[in-house]
């Protein structure tokens, strides 16, 4: 393939990825950290800036996720996320061993009507409505982390594969969306090899259902047939297919940024995900970084009249105003396709814009609050410990000199990237890209005004 470099040609990397041990080791460390974050949320200090659950989840993890993992590795985080782990172990009845002969749990197929990301859109919005207390209250964070863990375990007992990751995880939805822009992908090498492959163990070696399969691994936990992969959206980079493929036909490739965006989406659930992420970045910037005290109060006082107004405004802006405006600018365009299809297709061009909105917004609060990380490392529960001698470090914003230039660069870069994507989309979906570029420009100007 053009512009692709197969990274798994390096045998050292390939061996690391094929072996279960390195991934398992990282995941277990992540699981320990996740459980500790839950514990810290429940028994540690209620002061968020001194509690591991807030500092390590919403500052450290978020920074790594949105500034590094998603832009450069796509679903790289999903590859080591600990949330599905306990459920998967129970489902498989094993940590390392190959699939057994007897299925555990009910292993039902996920209902067809729900095989989309509408539930993920809803779960993200649900958390987003409570984000102000979620980001500051350790107990709330611990409750949400626990709920996600138990939901993943429960779903693993009833449904096959990683149902929680694929259809419910509030984080997984946007990671999948933005993984289309990442310069990394898992793909097959030769299509014909997959076509003629008997049994297709990369997908069907799910012993829990069939009782047969490869001794080297499980069928795709993400319910994706690697042979049909054209986008990275739903590939969790778990590397299971790399282990199960009997023909060595799976490759991890380096590719150009935004490669998946060349093929516009046709799905409205994915389109709305784009608007949810774009709009929520703008609303968060207004609430957390803006000068409007009454807006901040409304967002923080969950359950108050002001909060209900804020919630209605938040949902209205994201689900009605933004998509409505976008549809309105597409309406006059002549095109070969109906409005719904053009709406979905052109929303693809907003994916890089949204990602850069999140990068720019996250830079603000990550650089502002990063100094809490060292303090929390030494005293994660706020009990007066000083494990590494850094407990008493004073709060100090870091790299403030580069903040505004970096944010501007990210936003302008996102606008350019979005414009280029719109041009490519227009070649496929028909119509001029200019209105979409205009939409992106106005959104970028608003974001610049909010952040700078």
């Amino acid at each position, binding site marked *: 393939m053009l512009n692709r470099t197969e990274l798994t040609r390096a045998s050292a990397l390939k061996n690391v990825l094929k072996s279960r041990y390195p991934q398992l080791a990282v995941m*277990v460390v992540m699981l320990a950290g996740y459980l*500790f974050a839950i514990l810290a949320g429940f028994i540690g200090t209620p*002061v968020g800036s*001194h509690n591991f659950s807030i500092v390590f989840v919403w500052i450290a993890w978020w920074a790594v996720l949105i500034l590094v993992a998603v832009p450069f590795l796509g679903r790289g985080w999903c590859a080591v996320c600990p949330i599905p782990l306990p459920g998967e172990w129970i489902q498989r009845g094993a940590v390392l061993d190959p699939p057994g002969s007897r299925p555990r749990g009910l292993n039902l197929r996920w209902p067809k009507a729900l095989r989309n990301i509408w539930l993920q859109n809803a779960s993200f919005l649900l958390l987003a409505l409570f984000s102000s207390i979620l980001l500051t209250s350790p107990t709330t964070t611990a409750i949400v982390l626990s709920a996600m863990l138990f939901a993943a375990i429960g779903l693993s007992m009833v449904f096959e594969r990683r149902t929680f990751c694929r259809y419910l995880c509030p984080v997984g939805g946007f990671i999948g969306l933005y993984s289309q822009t990442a310069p990394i992908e898992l793909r097959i090498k030769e299509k014909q090899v997959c076509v003629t492959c008997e049994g297709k163990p990369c997908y069907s070696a799910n012993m829990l259902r069939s009782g047969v399969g490869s001794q080297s691994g499980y069928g795709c936990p993400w319910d994706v047939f690697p042979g049909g992969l054209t986008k990275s959206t739903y590939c969790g980079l778990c590397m299971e297919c790399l282990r199960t493929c009997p023909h060595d036909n799976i490759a991890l490739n380096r590719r150009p940024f935004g490669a998946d965006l060349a093929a516009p989406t046709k799905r409205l659930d994915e389109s709305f995900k784009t608007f949810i992420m774009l709009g929520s970045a703008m609303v968060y910037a207004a609430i957390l970084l803006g000068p409007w005290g009454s807006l901040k109060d409304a967002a923080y006082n969950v359950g108050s009249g002001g909060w209900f107004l804020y919630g209605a405004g938040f949902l209205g802006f994201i689900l009605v105003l933004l998509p409505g405006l976008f549809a309105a600018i597409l309406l006059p365009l002549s095109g070969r396709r109906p409005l719904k299809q053009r709406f979905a297709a052109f929303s693809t061009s907003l994916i890089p814009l949204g990602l850069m909105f999140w990068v720019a917004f996250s830079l603000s609060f990550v650089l502002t609050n990063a100094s809490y990380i060292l303090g929390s490392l030494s005293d994660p*529960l706020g009990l*007066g410990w000083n494990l590494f001698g850094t407990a008493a470090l004073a709060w100090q914003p870091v790299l403030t000199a580069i903040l505004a230039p970096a944010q501007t660069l990210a936003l302008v870069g996102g606008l350019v990237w979005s414009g280029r994507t719109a041009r490519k989309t227009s070649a496929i979906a028909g119509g001029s890209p200019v209105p979409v570029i205009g939409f992106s420009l106005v959104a970028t100007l608003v974001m610049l005004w909010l952040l700078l």
Partner: protein
Amino acid sequence: MKRSELVSRILITMAVLGAIAVPILFWVRTPLIHARVPEDGGWIPDALRAQVGVPLRLRLTSDDVLHGFSVGQMRMEAVDVLPGSVTEVSLMFEQPGTYTFYCTRQCGPNHWRMRGTIEVTGGSTTQDAPSAPLYVSLDLDLDAPHDSAAVPGEKPSAARGEQLAASLPIDRSIDYYRSHSPYQAFADLEDTSLTAAQRWDVVASLWGSNTAPEALARGGDLYAQNCAACHGETGAGDGVFADDLVAAGEASAQAMAGAHDMTMQAPVILADPATTLGASPALLQGKILRGGMGTGMPMWGSIFTEDQIWDLVAYIYSLHFSYH
């Protein structure tokens, strides 16, 4: 089960236990005293025990805003209790008794409610029985109206009054000072040939002669730290929490007899001469010591020493008299 599977399961179990059990173990062994605004619980726990002569080591943390910690009737510097951080304090008690620890930072409208007790036992020293405060000896009704029937037109000067008083038979004793209001002293001068303004100057000199500059300074510090948040920096009744006390109004009524008098109310305007010049030091001592019984005025008797209360009283009068 393969050996690798078994080893993995053991390692995973250890990791999970390490992430949960070990922190819980240390958490249980790290008792803290939590400080929260009174609406959310105040000091938790709020009843401590100690032994005479045995250091009491406390580890304090705030769960919300900045608080302070000090123990009443003791010579100790207040310490700050910061949100999410731990402050360590070591206390040594020389006398048995019940001590009151309290918040020294204005953490909210109910800040004054944020108190706890330390029950100190043991020790061979026998305690002197406390003597009744002066307002009790004088049988003063702390809640009776005491407005001054006359007020000075301008701020009375102790220096001017000193010259005028030289030829007058004035009782400058501390007993007279503490048991009379400035207005009573003013009235006692009615038979002299002095004008009203001159009589107020003489009263100022009388009050000044019972007010040491050091006592005034200590009283000023106490006032700024403990009183200004409600009574205002200048005694104008406009402290940062004054509005909150008024707003609490009827909602703060306590379920006891005379409930209409037991609601939070606007702080007394100490800068109003009619109010303050009609009160004797003994009366002010009683009001500070007992508190306002539900009005929002704290009970300071368990916190301030007797000397501190007299210092505070002296400072309050200095709002009305010029001693220089």
